[in-house]
């Protein structure tokens, strides 16, 4: 048994307000406000900018000593007023912090009060997410905020023809792909959150105070009247330990089903053929249309590629780390191509990862599945397991370098390469990209370490 540590060494997770900020960037016309110290907003901005290479404006209520003692009321009002005069937002997304939660800030009360005092003026919509960083990770913040937004905005009414797509934390390229797929199916949809533009925008020449893109509020309101929801994920934020509040955590799709009777189709992130099939089949069923030929061909090309390269990946040993739902998607994909996942790890603390991985693997597998990991522990595992490659975000690079094991970068954050927003992970086409990158990483490593500079493989 390896030693366990009380402390966290090189965290493989981020804090909840970051996840909330991502979701708020996926609402059209929204400015995020982090209710806490100035540093929280600035750190999160910097972290996201280094990945997306886009402006990320996040306001702070900038707590001082006085605020901490007497409460954030004054700073909250000043903050909202200043956001309004600088940004003219339609929505202000408010994420709490460890500080504001610990001193017991009543954000819903502050919002109510602000509304009363400013009645008659054009007040932005407010969404409030309770995201203390001592409860769970950035993914808990992310999913909590998706649900909180729907709770604040979804409306009942006559059922429409549209469906909801709740993709979880995927890349802007993934989001654009989803839109393309849904449009090709001719399905009316609400995709939320949609930061495909706001976090991967065109060159605008002007500084857009609030970057274009995002799911419009009137569309989010329609999630309550959709004929179905598709949501990617099986873990979500269900492991977030909170002593306050409900013990049972609902995903956003589950909430819509309970509150508005919108049937929920929950599925693993569609990476690999099986998971993508499930997604496309669901779309075919919901739309009553066959899978468009374009996607049947993508699927066919992917199978063709699997066949062409199968020997290069078969039996290769992968060490995987990242957000739990991403890890699960990748494990399913690796099973399809004969890559042996020797380590499936996450900084997430749901305690559900083992159960979910076991569902994807044959019994008696020897995959190490570990929740609550940090990079120092991942390094120790990797050293012992000696995998053929690492796959996960860029923060594993130092392990890759030290142990001379190639790293395939996926997910978030990728701070040491360009194009992070354009990495495509999902569907047949996304899987194709991942497959090519994995195969080539293995070939490149072998070629680089070969005694001759060979030209054919």
């Amino acid at each position, binding site marked *: 048994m390896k030693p366990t540590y009380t*402390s966290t060494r090189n965290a493989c997770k981020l804090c909840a307000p970051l996840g909330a900020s991502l979701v708020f960037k996926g609402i059209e016309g929204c400015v995020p406000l982090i209710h806490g110290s100035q540093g929280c907003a*600035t750190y999160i901005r910097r972290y996201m900018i280094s990945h997306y290479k886009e402006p990320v404006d996040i306001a702070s209520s900038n707590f001082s000593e006085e605020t901490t003692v007497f409460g954030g009321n004054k700073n909250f009002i000043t903050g909202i007023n*200043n956001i309004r005069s600088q940004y003219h937002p339609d929505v202000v997304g408010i994420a709490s912090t460890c500080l504001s939660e610990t001193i017991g800030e009543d954000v819903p009360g502050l919002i109510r009060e602000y509304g009363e005092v400013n009645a008659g003026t054009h007040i932005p919509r407010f969404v409030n997410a309770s995201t203390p960083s*001592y409860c769970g990770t950035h993914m808990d913040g992310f999913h909590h905020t998706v649900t909180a937004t729907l709770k604040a905005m979804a409306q009942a009414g006559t059922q429409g023809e549209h469906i909801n797509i709740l993709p979880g934390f995927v890349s802007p390229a993934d989001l654009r792909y989803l839109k393309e797929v849904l449009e090709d199916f001719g399905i009316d949809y609400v995709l939320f959150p949609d930061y495909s533009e706001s976090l991967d925008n065109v060159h605008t020449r002007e500084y857009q105070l609030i970057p274009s893109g995002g799911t419009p509020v009137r569309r989010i309101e329609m999630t309550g009247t959709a004929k179905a929801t598709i949501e990617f994920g099986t873990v979500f934020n269900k492991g977030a330990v909170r002593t306050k509040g409900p013990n049972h955590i609902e995903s956003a799709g589950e909430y819509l089903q309970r509150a508005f009777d919108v049937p929920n189709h929950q599925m693993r992130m569609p990476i690999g053929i099986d998971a993508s099939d499930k997604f496309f089949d669901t779309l075919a069923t919901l739309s009553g249309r066959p899978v468009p030929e374009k996607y049947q061909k993508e699927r066919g090309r992917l199978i063709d590629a699997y066949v062409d390269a199968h020997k290069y990946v078969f039996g290769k040993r992968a060490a995987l780390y990242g957000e739990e739902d991403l890890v699960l998607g990748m494990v399913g994909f690796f099973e399809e191509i004969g890559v042996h996942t020797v380590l499936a790890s996450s900084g997430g603390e749901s305690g559900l990862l083992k159960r979910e991985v076991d569902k994807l693997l044959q019994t008696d597998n020897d995959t190490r599945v570990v929740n609550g990991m940090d990079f120092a522990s991942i390094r120790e595992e990797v050293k012992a397991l000696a995998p053929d490659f690492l796959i996960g975000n860029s923060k594993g690079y130092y392990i890759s370098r030290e142990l001379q094991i190639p790293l395939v970068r996926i997910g978030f954050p990728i701070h040491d390469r360009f194009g992070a927003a354009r990495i495509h992970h999902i569907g047949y086409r996304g899987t194709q990209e991942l497959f090519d990158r994995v195969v080539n990483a293995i070939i490149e490593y072998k070629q680089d370490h070969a005694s001759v500079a060979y030209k054919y493989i």
Partner: protein
Amino acid sequence: MSYILNERKNQVSHAGINADTVACNKPSLAGSVSQRACVFCGSRVVLYPIADALHLIHGPIGCAAYTWDIRGSMSSGPELHRMSFSTDLHEKEVIFGGEPKLYASLIELIDKYQPKAAFVYTTCIVGVIGDDVERICRQVTREKGIPVLPVQAPGFQGSKKDGYKVACETLFNLVGTLNLPTPKYSINILGDFNLAGELWILLDYYKRMGVHVNATITGDGRVDAIRNAHNAALNVVQCSGSMNYLAKMMKDTYGIPSMRVSYFGIEDMSDALYDVARFFKSDEMMDKARDLVRDEFQRLMPALAWYRERLQGKKAAIYVGGAFKAISLIKALRLIGVQSVIVGSQTGTPEDYELIKQLCDEGTIIVDDSNPVELSNFVKEKEADIFIGGVKERPIAHKIGLGFCDHNHERKEPLAGYEGMMNFAKEIYATAMSPVWRFTK
């Protein structure tokens, strides 16, 4: 300038037009989207480069995650500073107290990594939940026999600049606790953080002059060298905002004089060498400094002339953390033909801004604690071609179609010293002359 929030109007000025000083040293305005971070950040960036110390952040995970390997501060030896350690407080500890977890974390990490000292950073909620961090630090100091120092840096207790002061107070507790034989002509370098190996460039210059560098605080820093810092004859202080306070305390307690220098740009770099030679009243040292500067100039000036010819007439916006750096940048840019039309900083003092006003051409916008709305409007108004700033300013510049020069924590090219000036010219040229701007007009 209607886009400037009313409460911020006195933090913006124009050289030669408004007589008023730039209001500064103020907390950032809520909702303004300040580019500043917090007290914790200020202390963390200053202490971060001390390579053989354990840096443990006591709080929930965010503060540690966002500052993992945040600065490109290089070390010639141990690299413990590049690890991110956190007590990773969960709700349970927030309710019942984090002291046992802090104690256990310190013990296990000191046992495993054998640091020369440990810094324990307190974050926002630690004070609020009432952990007695000082007591735990004292206890572990006794048990483990190394200095375990609290860094009292809850984010809300002021601004980034207050964090510098907290870091200085912490460092001061180390200074004077060790006595090593120290040569006569020895200096401490304060306020260089060895980004991209910049400190090593300076060490070479001082070595060529016959000056012994005692402690480097904190670039490529070592605990024992800091403990012995009081035995140097002089503190040479760069990045005045972060380290002046330590220099002042060392002067008051140990009588060590200090001087402010900057290593950016060839004028300031040369002054930094001459001033040290002058301080030691050594003709030999001064001659060596002159030789060094002459050699470097002979090499550098023709190359810089080439750049000046091509960059002449370009306009730059500067927005950086410390105003002293901004001042050097104005001069360095002028040397290559570039005019500064916007100059701002996160943490400048009234004196800094006065100096900037005097240095700049009429109409230059001078701003304290700015934000994306202002900066994006300023660069359009002043028709800047190039922006010099940090990570958070880069997308502002790029989205508008401006060249950008990284003068941030994580840069990989040294910008200090003479070779740094050359890199700076190259980078400005590369960003100003790239053919890509054709597509953004």
